[in-house]
């Protein structure tokens, strides 16, 4: 039973900011708010579930690794914590271009969660409170505080909603369902109504997770071992690479087969998706195994990755086989997979449904357009993934703090970071499934590399106040070294000496017919900055990260310059801001559809307006002229 009138009381601890939820978004939001000097309280339904990883045991991966590095450059915590708690690490796409290199680490889940909790506990200005928040209190569309299940009122000036998958959560497999959040944790069943009463539109999304299997029941001899990289690259720019060269745990690769698929096909009618028990929209990018079997019927096998959940647990995550089929079917299907013949399931696979919002109700600062001081981040905004959540949490935390500082919120645009792409997509485009970051969503990805996240965003982190002056100075020095060395390489002449020709030949590179520059040689596909060291006498000893930047910037100069020119064009429209009080209906010449969409989304800039579906280039021209004439 929720509180009665008798239980209502007011907390007088004087919090400025309340964060609802202590998952990956909530942790970053609370840390940022507290570090920027505001008294912050973070609510969670269970202190033991702080920074919980209820699904896959990894941080990073394609484009998600980029998010973590950007977060780190801005002063977030995720990168530092995973560097302390990973048990295996890989740089993905190493054979591809630098823009798509992406770090992915296996986490020791319990250790990650504990370490993050420790950071929160040690953070000045930040209090942890185990309690379900049931109401957002607002005064004339302005946040006034939150109220808890117990009846307590916490007055505050800003609230950050990071409720993840907990709102009215329901977990389902077969015809069994529980009214719980992930991992059997208590759901938050009241907040949705409170939000609706504030005029906020809710969606219902669905996602899922595979079973966890006892490693003692697995025959690894039938699987391929997947090891980590020999040389590990840390996530955080502050981590000394020497500190992360650990003994790594292995993952294992096996495959489903026709037997697996037969069992699945025979039992499809028992899936809650087919019976209509699940109404939420699931993500297309992480389909359940039953989805894969139906949709890609021509594939006779699918990969299955067996990944450790940590060093102190025997539970193994069965990557690639999430499901909501009944328990007996789960047992049967997992046991058809080579190596899993005697598998013992510790936790069932399940689908989970939860309430979230249509994020187009948010500004690019992640503040609600119609409730001042109310911010939100993470899965609540319709995204998926720990990294996406953390990135939004950080931005929401920073902007809630800036709001109280009386400053403009920060907006990272699409040319500055994946975080910008993520947030812009969420607040601009309609989505009917949890949003996952992908490198193909970043139109300027050659510029948004994981290797240069520090150069892109440390300055902003410093200006915001989350990056120390010392760290910023170090970055400036790094930039100086890079620029000087690029200049030197482009102006260093290389003659046609025997030594040069010999070096070229040893790399299978065409000999020179006349002199050239070091830069020109670096641009040859088969050569690199490092490879040319023997013929580059003036070269100074430089740090590895500087060399990496010199190499990339010279090698891909043509492509990078092209994208930079595109960014210039992009920025022109991005800088044309639209006043908040604009009345689109009074602009006669806008088409009706454009009027409706613009009124609904209220874009902050002409650039954002141009990305709204249903707004044509002619509408944008009309808008430009209209704004000019105001």
């Amino acid at each position, binding site marked *: 039973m929720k509180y009665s009138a008798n239980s209502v009381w007011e907390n007088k601890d004087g919090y400025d900011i309340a964060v609802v939820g202590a998952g990956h978004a909530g942790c970053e939001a609370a840390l940022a708010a507290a570090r920027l000097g505001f008294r912050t309280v973070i609510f969670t339904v269970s202190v033991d579930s702080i920074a919980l990883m209820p699904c896959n045991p990894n941080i990073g991966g394609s*484009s998600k690794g980029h998010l973590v590095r950007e977060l780190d450059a801005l002063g977030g915590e995720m990168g530092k914590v995973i560097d302390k708690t990973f048990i295996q690490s890989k740089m993905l796409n190493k*054979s591809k*271009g630098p823009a798509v290199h992406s770090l992915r680490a296996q986490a020791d889940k319990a250790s990650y969660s504990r370490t993050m909790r420790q950071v929160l506990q040690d953070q000045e200005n930040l209090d942890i409170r185990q309690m379900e928040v049931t109401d957002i209190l607002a005064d004339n569309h302005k946040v006034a505080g939150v109220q808890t299940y117990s009846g307590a009122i916490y007055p505050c000036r800003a609230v950050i909603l990071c409720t993840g998958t907990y709102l009215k959560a329901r977990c389902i497999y077969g015809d069994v369902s529980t009214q719980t959040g992930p991992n059997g944790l208590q759901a938050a069943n009241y907040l949705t109504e409170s939000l609706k009463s504030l005029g906020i539109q809710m969606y219902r999304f669905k996602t899922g997770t595979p079973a966890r299997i006892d490693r003692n029941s697995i025959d690894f001899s039938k699987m391929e071992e997947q090891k980590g990289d020999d040389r590990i690259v840390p996530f955080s720019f502050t981590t000394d690479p020497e500190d992360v060269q650990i003994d790594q745990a292995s993952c294992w690769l096996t495959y489903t087969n026709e037997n697996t698929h037969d069992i699945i096909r025979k039992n499809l009618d028992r899936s809650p998706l087919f019976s209509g028990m699940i109404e939420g929209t699931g993500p297309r*990018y992480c389909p359940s195994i039953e989805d894969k079997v139906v949709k890609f019927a021509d594939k006779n096998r699918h990969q299955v*990755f067996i990944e450790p959940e940590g060093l102190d647990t025997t539970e193994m995550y069965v*990557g690639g086989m999430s499901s909501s089929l009944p328990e007996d079917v789960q047992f049967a299907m997992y046991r058809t997979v080579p190596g899993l013949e005697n598998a013992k399931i510790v936790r069932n696979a399940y689908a989970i449904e939860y309430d979230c919002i249509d994020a187009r109700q948010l500004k690019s600062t992640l503040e609600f357009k119609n409730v001042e001081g109310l911010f939100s981040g993470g899965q609540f905004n319709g995204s998926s993934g720990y990294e996406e959540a953390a990135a939004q949490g950080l931005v929401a935390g920073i902007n809630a703090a800036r709001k109280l500082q009386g400053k403009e919120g920060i907006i990272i645009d699409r040319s500055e970071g994946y975080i910008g792409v993520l947030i812009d997509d969420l607040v601009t485009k309609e989505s009917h499934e949890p949003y996952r970051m992908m*490198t*193909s969503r970043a139109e300027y990805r050659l510029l948004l590399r994981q290797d240069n996240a520090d150069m892109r965003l440390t300055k902003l982190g410093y200006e915001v106040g989350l990056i120390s002056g010392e760290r910023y100075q170090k970055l400036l020095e790094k930039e100086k070294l890079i620029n000087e060395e690029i200049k030197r390489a482009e102006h260093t002449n290389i003659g046609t000496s025997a030594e040069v020709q010999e070096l070229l030949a040893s790399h299978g590179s065409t000999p020179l017919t006349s002199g050239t520059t070091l830069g020109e040689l670096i641009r040859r596909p088969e050569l690199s900055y490092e490879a040319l060291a023997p013929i580059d006498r003036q070269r100074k000893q430089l740090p590895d990260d500087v060399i990496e930047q010199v190499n990339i910037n010279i090698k891909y100069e043509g492509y990078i310059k092209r994208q930079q020119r595109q960014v210039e064009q992009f920025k022109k429209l991005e800088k044309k801001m639209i006043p908040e009080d604009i009345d689109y209906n009074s602009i006669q*010449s806008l088409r009706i559809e454009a009027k409706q969409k613009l009124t609904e989304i209220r874009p902050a800039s002409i650039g954002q307006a141009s990305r709204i579906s249903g707004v044509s280039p002619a509408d944008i021209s009309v808008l430009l*002229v209209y704004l000019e004439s105001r």
Partner: protein
Amino acid sequence: MKKDTIAAISTGMTNSGIGIVRISGDEAFHMIDRIYHGKERLSEAESHTIHYGYIKDKEETIDEVLVMLMRSPRTFTGEDTVEINCHGGTYVVKRVLETVIKNGARPAEPGEFTKRAFLNGKLDLSQAEAVIDVITSQSEYALQSSISQLKGSVRKKIEDIRKQIIYHTAFIETALDDPEHIDIDGYGETLKKVTEELLVEIKKLIDSSDSGRIMKEGIQTVIVGKPNAGKSSLLNVLAGKERAIVTDIEGTTRDALEEQIQLKGLTLNMIDTAGIRKTDDIIEKIGVDKAKEYVKNANLIIYVVDASRPLDSNDNDIMSLLDGRKVIILLNKSDLTTVITKEKMQEEINQKVLKFSRSAEAGTIPMIDISAKEEQGLNELEETLKEMFLHGEVSFNDEVYITNIRQKAALIDACGSLEKVIESIDNQMPEDFFSIDLMDAYESLGSITGETIGEDLVNEIFSKFCMGK
């Protein structure tokens, strides 16, 4: 990438005496330098001056022009502006515009000059409403006219090409997003083949824009043949048969008037000089040099051979002009005793033309026996023309060609992007670099069919490829 220097024909698309192509933007002066041939470099000339010279597309002279230079800010748009005054007639003006676009401008959006003028503070704020009206009305018009110009098979062709591009891009992107499930090492080879095929398709469409123009504006045709070969009787027969619509359009060469003849839905613009009409002898009257000029600008050469007399030096002169051109040879006077048979003529052609030829056209010159006097062989001529210009691929009432300059520019952009893909593959760039140019091509092609990129790539990834987790 969106280019920022724009160009458009600022006079109406009518056959007026003069046409003006206007260029506005930072690059306007560099662009005119590349195509203008006259006494000086225009980028170094003084503002608000007029210059006489020629517009050339590489070697080919397009027109004799007057170019007006106006430097920012004292111009209509407030930007550097160049106006090319060329000879009226839709063909020449369009060619000049195309040349400008080829050299880096992009076709202006509807109302864009006015919009720029306004945004650069050149128009009074009170004119905002009027400016908005110009933009919206012109957009509406452009949309309607470009949609009506794009029908059936072209749309389908472009959609097919786009489908292939997005499919391969999605495959690459899926692999990048999910490298442990999908391996694309060595995919460049496959993609290169596909891209080369797509390039061929797009180039065909670009070529069809010339066919499209031919459909709309007629085939620039010149009749050659020695004196008394029967050129004027042929012309009279053709004109009479289909009731020639005689107009006085000024043609590609200013001093030549055109006579339009409708044949089976094709329009032949017969280059009709005093020579043809009065003396019946183009070679004699104005000389081989002048004939060469006509031949150079023509889409079609009809070579009338007097089959009742042996070939002479006049014929040799004519044959020297035929290499690489679209030609029909008519063996006239089939009603008389003939001394020139098809076989004999082919031999001559083999010797005089093909011997030195590097052109595929030369091997396939159609020959028809006709009698202008008896009106025999004319049906065969019509069928042959249809075959030559409509490739027998499409029914000729269906307007399926790219005729719009904006659309053609988009096709050329798409070609450029795909060529960059091939370049990246050849330079052994990693696969993720291919996507960038593939998507540029996809976007350019989409601008023809009126489609934007939106979530296409992400949707394709999810619908065609199985991503893990």
